[in-house]
């Protein structure tokens, strides 16, 4: 094995031994890091699900044109023809009031409530898939609102757009929280390494007197920080998995009742790998800053 690899192998071995030599304190540090990291990771998972949910609607904008209960068949025919001829309409689908009532009673579990109604309160409606963005939706909405027999026109994407705007705010919040907690990871590692350096000061000083380079001094601490960050990330992912399992069971009940498909999914392998690598690097950064601070102070003396 060449000298460079040998030095790194020894540093990793040294870091691992140091970690095992203080199991309680190492476990507590790792746990603190894990708990702190699990919060933004869990939030980001929720966010990813919500984003997917909103994207399904915003990528396929629809407009619902509700006819007045008093609309005549001729008026319905005219509205359909106008919609088919409209530049913004991609596909026009008619949902009769009886079919709408059946759908509602099936999908939302409202059968009991709807059965007590004497008459069907739902109107006939056209659901229009819109070709184009927000402008096309708005144009169609404005045009259709003025046609005879039309009582109300609703853009189905509006709430999704609002949700997306809300998710934008949430994304920023998650980013800010993640940045703060990442800084916390660096600070925790900085302090852990500072305490370790204090405990090993005599050893470091002797090593420097007999020819240890800064790299030789720094290496075991860098690997310690790296290992601590990595283990913290593993704990964080484990906590997220526990949360996903617990919440998943509740969501399954909710999905069964409302016929929805909302899930708190597990992260992808790429995300686990990426975040774990980032945490390991942040741990190493905290350690590097701590050792650098010690070496700088030593030189100043």
């Amino acid at each position, binding site marked *: 094995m060449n000298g460079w690899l040998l030095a790194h192998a020894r540093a990793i071995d040294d870091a691992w031994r140091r970690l095992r030599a203080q199991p309680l304190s190492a476990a507590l540090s790792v746990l603190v890091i894990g708990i702190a990291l699990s919060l933004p990771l869990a939030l980001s998972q929720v966010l990813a699900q919500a984003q997917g949910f909103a994207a399904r609607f915003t990528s396929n904008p629809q407009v619902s044109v509700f006819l007045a209960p008093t609309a005549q068949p001729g008026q319905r025919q005219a509205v359909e023809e106008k919609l088919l001829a409209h530049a913004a309409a991609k596909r026009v689908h008619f949902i009769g009031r009886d079919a709408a009532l059946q759908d509602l009673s099936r999908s939302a579990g409202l059968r009991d409530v709807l059965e007590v109604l004497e008459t069907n309160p739902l109107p006939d409606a056209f659901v229009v898939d819109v070709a184009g963005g927000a402008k096309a939706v708005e144009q169609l909405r404005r045009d259709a609102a003025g046609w005879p027999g039309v009582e109300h026109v609703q853009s189905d994407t509006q709430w999704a757009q609002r949700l997306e705007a809300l998710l934008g705010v949430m994304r920023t919040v998650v980013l800010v929280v993640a940045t703060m907690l990442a800084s916390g990871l660096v600070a925790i590692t900085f302090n852990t390494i500072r305490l370790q350096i204090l405990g090993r000061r005599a050893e470091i000083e002797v090593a420097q*007197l007999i020819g240890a380079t800064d790299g030789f001094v720094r290496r075991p601490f860098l690997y310690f920080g790296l290992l601590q960050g990595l283990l913290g990330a593993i704990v964080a992912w484990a906590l997220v998995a526990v949360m996903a399992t617990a919440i998943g069971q509740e969501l399954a009940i909710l999905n069964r009742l409302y016929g929805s498909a909302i899930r708190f999914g597990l992260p992808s392998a790429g995300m686990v790998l990426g975040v774990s690598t980032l945490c390991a690097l942040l741990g190493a950064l905290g350690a590097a800053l701590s050792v650098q601070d010690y070496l700088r102070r030593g030189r100043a003396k």
Partner: protein
Amino acid sequence: MLNLSHASKRYPGGIEALHDVSLTIERGQLVLVEGDSGAGKSTLLKLLSAIELPSAGAVVIDGQNTRALGTRALALLRRQFGVIFQDHKLLFDRNAFENVMLPLDIGGFERREAQRRARAALDKVGLLHKEKALPVALSGGEQQRLCIARAIVHRPSVIVADEPTGNLDQTQAERVLDMLDSFNALGVTMVISTHDRMARERLDGQRVCLQSGALIEPALAAR
């Protein structure tokens, strides 16, 4: 070759430990640095082994001016030396074997070769049977010999010993001095500071005398 040219050392606080010292030590030479306590012997040894840098003047080791070197180059230069510290500077949480392994770990020696060398060095100073003992379990003489084992284990070209017989009884001191003499006989450059009369009598080498930080023995003054 070690060369001091008008070297001075002033510590923070204004204390000048060494003043305008010029000195040349050739390869394989044995030099005894004499002087009372506080004369500047330890400081001179620290300058010669690149542990300290001069405040003024120059210290040149094998053609390298220590003041012109960076941190890494200085560390690498120190590996050429075996230093026997006055206070041993042993690591008390590591056993004798691990203490001797330290310079070899720093030097990046292959593990098996390092272990072989560490045991040979311990054997040389008569401590192989105590390789697992912590320094606290060793006598003063044994600690001194352990420090010597650590200084020679990487086969340095120069050994610098600061009061190697201080605090030792006569038998232990004679043993240590014989050991140092034997290293010099093998061609290792030796710089030994001492105010021990027995050491001065037993070791045959060039003498440098310091008083209040200045060189007063002209024999080795700058040529």
